[in-house]
Structure formats: structure tokens, C-alpha cells
């Protein structure tokens, strides 16, 4: 046992020396997650505002100008230009200068003044569906508001009292993230994805690389056992992954004020189990990939894409096709994103996330056992 620990320690020291000899790589392992976090947290948002809008006022009356103020005064729209012809609208859409066009037909003001209905055409650029949907919703809402205003003015002029009309009034409350800040929602998930990418890819490649370079044979003839080698190889990456977790949590708190409401113990246990699960996944890749190139692509396929798309980070999992929902259980990121959000935002602890913790523990165990078996078989060949 003692000898075994000594051997492991020797390899760990060797691995850290390797890293130490390559300060650029070491820096990248620590700096990359930080830059990713900053980028993701600032850039990712589903909140669309300042939709570039072009207005065509063919009426030019007090009424049309009053209506257009609806768009000028709102932060949802930014009027980028005014045009006189539809050709200008086509051009602006083609060059991506505007994604929304408001066209007021001639006679708009006259219609309204006579108590009729004024015609407005709203053109939405559907080539970017996310912003198109949202701009469409904003437009509908803005028009409803304007019409209500017109109705009120009209009723006042007619001497009618509209307040006697009852109705339901929605009172929306948002729990857990009342200001609905994207960063509160994204950072707990981002931590998971960033760590998944670093750990899976690095472990997968470190082990295969020894094989590529032929140093694996050298290790085989040493008294080192397979398990010892793997533990020793993984320990430095575990340490780095933990460092990354700590850095991201601190940054999230300091820079983005993401609240940490729940049990930090549950988060720590979850992170540890998740790191082991991700390392296990990396080991599996290294066991099946014959070359570093394959390991690289395989890790990209199973670490980057699923953690990004199938973890619930940005896309709601209960909305995707059922087959893909099942598939999402095959990747540890899904469990960890849940743990992270429950602990950070919902203030949960072990009582709420034990099923996920259990799943991760099981996942890590199975992955490490299967991949050591595969590695062992490979070594005997």
C-alpha cells in the first residue's frame, strides 16, 4: 500500500512537472474558464431589445407621428432610419440594417379622426426566428396599449365610463429569480459546462497521448499498476477542475452577484462527484480511442455538444423530443446543472438534490470501473 502510494505520488509529481514546464498550457487551463464565463455571461441572452426598426410614414399627420412615438419611445425598438419607399425597406432588410419595418398607409390620420380604423403594416424579418418572434410579440403588445389609449380618449370624449367593465387581471410573480436576470439563470449552469469541457477533453487526451508517444509501453514495464497510473494521471486534473469550480463560483458572486442561497456543502459534494463522473467519461474515451485525433473529436462530441445542448443550460429539457430527453440522462452535465440551480437559486440542499447526487455517484463509479476494465484489457493485448 505504502509503495503503491509512493508510486502514485511519483507520477503525480511528474505530471505537475510536465504542466509546470508548459506554463502556457497551465495558464490556459485556468484562464480559459474565466474568459469563457465572462463571455458567456455577458453575451448570452434571450432578452431581445433595441430591435433595429425602419419606419415609413406615408401619412405624415399628427396622428401618424403620435403613433410612431410608440416605437421611438420604447427600449424594445430603435428607429434606425426613416424611408419614403418600400424599396428602401427591402434594401435595409437585405443588408441586415433593420429587422422590423412599420409602414403607415396614407389616410391613417383621417381614418382615426373620423372614428374609424387606421391601417398600419408591420413587416418582420423572419430570418432570425428568435428575435422575430419576440419583436412580433412586442408589436402586438404595443398596439394593444395604443388601442386602449385611443379607447379611453374616445370614451372620455363620449362621456362613457368604461371602468364598470370587469375583467381578470393577471398578477405575475417570478420565484427564485424575480428580476429574471439571465446571468442568475446561466452562471450556475455555465460552471458545469465549462468544467465538463476542460476535464473530459484533457483526461481523454492525456492518456491517449502516452500511447501515441510510446511512453505507455515504458510505463507498462515499470512496477506501476494500471490503476495506479490512472489515479496518478487523474489527480492533477481533479485538482485543476476543483480550482476552476472555485474560481467560477467566486467570479459569479463578485462580478455577477449570483446569489448562493442554498447549502454550499451539497454544491461541493455535487461538484466533486461531477468532476469524477466527467473524468470517468474522459477515461472511457481514452480507452476506446485509438489515436489522439480520435480522442479529441470523440471528447468534443460527448463533452461539448451534450453539455451545451442537453444539460438544460440554455434550452428547456422538458420541451425537446422524448428520445433526446432520454439521451440527456447519459451525460453527467444534466444532473449537475440541476444541482447547481437548485442550490444557487432555489436555496436547496441535500434534501432536494439527493437523487441527482446519487445518480452522479453511480455514474462516476460505473464509468471508472468500465474504463479501467477496458484499459486493462487493452494492456494485456
Amino acid at each position, binding site marked *: 500500500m505504502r509503495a503503491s502510494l509512493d508510486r502514485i505520488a511519483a507520477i503525480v509529481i511528474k505530471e505537475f512537472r510536465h504542466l509546470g514546464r508548459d506554463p*502556457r498550457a497551465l495558464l490556459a487551463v485556468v484562464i480559459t474558464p474565466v474568459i469563457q464565463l465572462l463571455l458567456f455571461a455577458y453575451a448570452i441572452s434571450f432578452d431581445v431589445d433595441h430591435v433595429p426598426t425602419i419606419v415609413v410614414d406615408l401619412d405624415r399627420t399628427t396622428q401618424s407621428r403620435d403613433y410612431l412615438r410608440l416605437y421611438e419611445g420604447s427600449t424594445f425598438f430603435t428607429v434606425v432610419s426613416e424611408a419614403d419607399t418600400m424599396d428602401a425597406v427591402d434594401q435595409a432588410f437585405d443588408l441586415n440594417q433593420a429587422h422590423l419595418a412599420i409602414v403607415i398607409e396614407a389616410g391613417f390620420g383621417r381614418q382615426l379622426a373620423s372614428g374609424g380604423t387606421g391601417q398600419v403594416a408591420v413587416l418582420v424579418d423572419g430570418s432570425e426566428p428568435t428575435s422575430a418572434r419576440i419583436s412580433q410579440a412586442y408589436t402586438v403588445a404595443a398596439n394593444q396599449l395604443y388601442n386602449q389609449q385611443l379607447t379611453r380618449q374616445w370614451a372620455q370624449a363620449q362621456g362613457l365610463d368604461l371602468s364598470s367593465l370587469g375583467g381578470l387581471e393577471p398578477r405575475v410573480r417570478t420565484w427564485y429569480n424575480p428580476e429574471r436576470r439571465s446571468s442568475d439563470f446561466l452562471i450556475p449552469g455555465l460552471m458545469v459546462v465549462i468544467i465538463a469541457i476542460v476535464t473530459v477533453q484533457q483526461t481523454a487526451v492525456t492518456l491517449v497521448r502516452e500511447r501515441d508517444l510510446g511512453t505507455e509501453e515504458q510505463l507498462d514495464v515499470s512496477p506501476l499498476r494500471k490503476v495506479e497510473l490512472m489515479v496518478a494521471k487523474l489527480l492533477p486534473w481533479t485538482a485543476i477542475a476543483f480550482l476552476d469550480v472555485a474560481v467560477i463560483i467566486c467570479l459569479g458572486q463578485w462580478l455577477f452577484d449570483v446569489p448562493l442561497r442554498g447549502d454550499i456543502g451539497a454544491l461541493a459534494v455535487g461538484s466533486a462527484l461531477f468532476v469524477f463522473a466527467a473524468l470517468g467519461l474522459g477515461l472511457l474515451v481514452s480507452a476506446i480511442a485509438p489515436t489522439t485525433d480520435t480522442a479529441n473529436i470523440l471528447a468534443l462530441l460527448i463533452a461539448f455538444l451534450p453539455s451545451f445542448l442537453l444539460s438544460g443550460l440554455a434550452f428547456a429539457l422538458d420541451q425537446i423530443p422524448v428520445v433526446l430527453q432520454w439521451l440527456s440522462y447519459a451525460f453527467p452535465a444534466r444532473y449537475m446543472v440541476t444541482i447547481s440551480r437548485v442550490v444557487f437559486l432555489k436555496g436547496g440542499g441535500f434534501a432536494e438534490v439527493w437523487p441527482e447526487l446519487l445518480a452522479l455517484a453511480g455514474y462516476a463509479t460505473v464509468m471508472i470501473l468500465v474504463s479501467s476494465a477496458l484499459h486493462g484489457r487493452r494492456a494485456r493485448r
Partner: protein
Amino acid sequence: MSGKRIRLLIWKEFLQLRRDPMLIRLLMLMPVLQLILFGYVVAVDIRNLSTAVVDLDHSATSQKLEAAFTGSGYFRIVSHPASENELRPLLDRGTVTVAIVIPEGTEDRLITGQTAPVGIVVDGSDSQISAVGSGYASQIIAGFNAELRDAAGVSLSPPGVDARIRVMFNPTMDPVNTMIPGLIAVIMMISLMAILSQAVVKERESGTLEQMFVTPIKAEEYLIGKVTPYAVLATAQMLVVAVVGMLWFRVPFSGNVWVVLTGLALFMLTNIGMGLFVSLVSRTRQQAQQAMAFLMIPTMILSGFIFPIESMPDLIQPFTKLIPMTWALIVLRNSFVKGSDFAALTVPLVVLAGFAVVIFTAAVVATRRRISD
């Protein structure tokens, strides 16, 4: 330049690729997997939100309201808690993401012409669900109110504005129609960068690079030989995505094929140059890999592939212009969806050409320096 030397080099690279059949299989599988994942996950329409209804009124009105929620298709009612206190654990555990609370006396208030509040609780830990869920709920209630007024026989004809909304280019606003054209560029970037960034550094690590440079080979010949097999592979992947994507997801193509091909060729040169450059300046494969991840992730995030550029902060937006993918996406999406021609896409095409020239030149210079070392 010697054609024979280049041919031999290309042959050598192909032989090396063939030695790892798993790699080729993976490279062909990757685009299909990505297509399915991005197509189905990113392009999802939020519907059937798990909802709890707390009906404290037990009246015809509350039932009608519940029916309006169910009928909309946006909400799937999974639970009827007896009191508001029972909501907390449901939302904590994530069993429901939306809850509707109809207070006691709602019907009485409506009958007497008063306003009756309806509580809508949304899970804010998922920002998309909370935004969409509360929006849909308010819409349904507005529709419900309109029906109430009609039923009460209140007919008013105040002046109003009739805004006819017409969606151009992609009338169904189907995200798949823009996702698939974008995916062609994304897949091209991922595979070219992932493999090419390793190509030179690999030879360096195993020492075959020095062997290569004592032969009479020239930098240009070396580059062409090195790059051609991967360019062929990337083209094959791209075709797989384009064909499968268009057939499976029924993505219409309304543009000019030559515009698309020009844009893709320029973008391919950019990526090849970038991959080579990373490979040439990295000392170890690990470094190359990290550099690649370092370049790829911001590209995915900032190019507008998933998240609309307009919703990024003003400070970030100028940076998106420095990313070749941003321009490649404009060319591809506008061609597919808007049917734009060369004239409309001159700016993005010229910018892409500029990127290609700069990056490729950098790669050639780096190779020359390596050889003269």
C-alpha cells in the same frame, strides 16, 4: 512547385487518416449528430409547460379559465394543489414550472363588474420558461376578458389601429430554417479546426517534421499537401449536412448556389488557415487543443449562431464583427432564407475574403519561418 511532391504528400496524409478508421467514421457521424441535436434542441418551440392550478373559487368561471389554459396548448396541467402553500415544494422540486392561482370570490367580483386578480407564478430559475410562460398566461387572460365582454353584449366601436403583421422571408418563423444553413458553417469550422490544429504539431511531437524539412519540399507544397485531404473531408461533411438537413428538416433554399459556394470556399480557407496557424505556433498537441477550444467557443457564442447578436450588450457587438463565422452566417442565412444574390452580399463576401487572405498569409509565413529555423 512540384505537383508530384504535393501528390505524394496528399497520399501520405490519406494513408495516415486511413490508419485510424474510427476517426473517419466519427467525422462522418459528427455532422449528422450535430444536425439532430441542434435541429431539435435549439429550434424547440416552448409548449406544454407543466402547470399547477390552485382553484380556490370552485366556480364555473374558474373552470372556464382552466379550460382556456389547457386549450391553448402552451400549458399542461399536472397538479391541482388544494392551497397556495402546497405550491412551494412543487416548484422547488421542479415538478411544475408555472402555477395559476384563482382566488376565492373571483366569479362574484366579475359578476359585480370588478377587477379580479389571478395569480401567475413562474419558475424564474429558467429564464426562457419564465418569460414565455408569463407572456402566454397574460395573453390567455386577455383573450378570456375579450370573450367576457362579448358575452356581456358590450359592443363598442371606438377608433383603433389595425396593425397587420407580416413576417417576411420565413413566414412560419421556423428556427430550423436558419439553424441548418448556419450549421453548415459551424460543422465546417469544428472539424477543420479540430483536426488541422493537430496536423503539424503532431509531426513535430513525433519528430517527423524535421525529417520533412531536410527533403527538398517547399513551404507552399507542404501546406497544400497537408491541407487538401482535410479540405476534401470538410467538403464531404458539409454536403452531408446540407443534403440531410434540407431533406429531413425540409429547409427551403431560395438563393443562388454560387453565392453559397463562394462564401463557403472563402470560409473554408479562413478555417484552414486558422487551424494551420494554431498548429504551427503550438509546441504541444495539448496547447494546440486549448488554443482551438479558446477560439471555437467564443465563435459559437458570439457569431449569432444561437443567440441573436442584437440582444448582446453594445460593448460586445463590435467584437462579433471580428469573427469570420459572423459573416459566413450572414452569407448562408441570407442566401437560404432571403434568396440574396451577389450584389446584396458583397460586403460580407469581401470581408470573408479579407479574413481568408490575412489568416492564410499568416499560416504561410509561420511555415516558412519553421522551415528556415
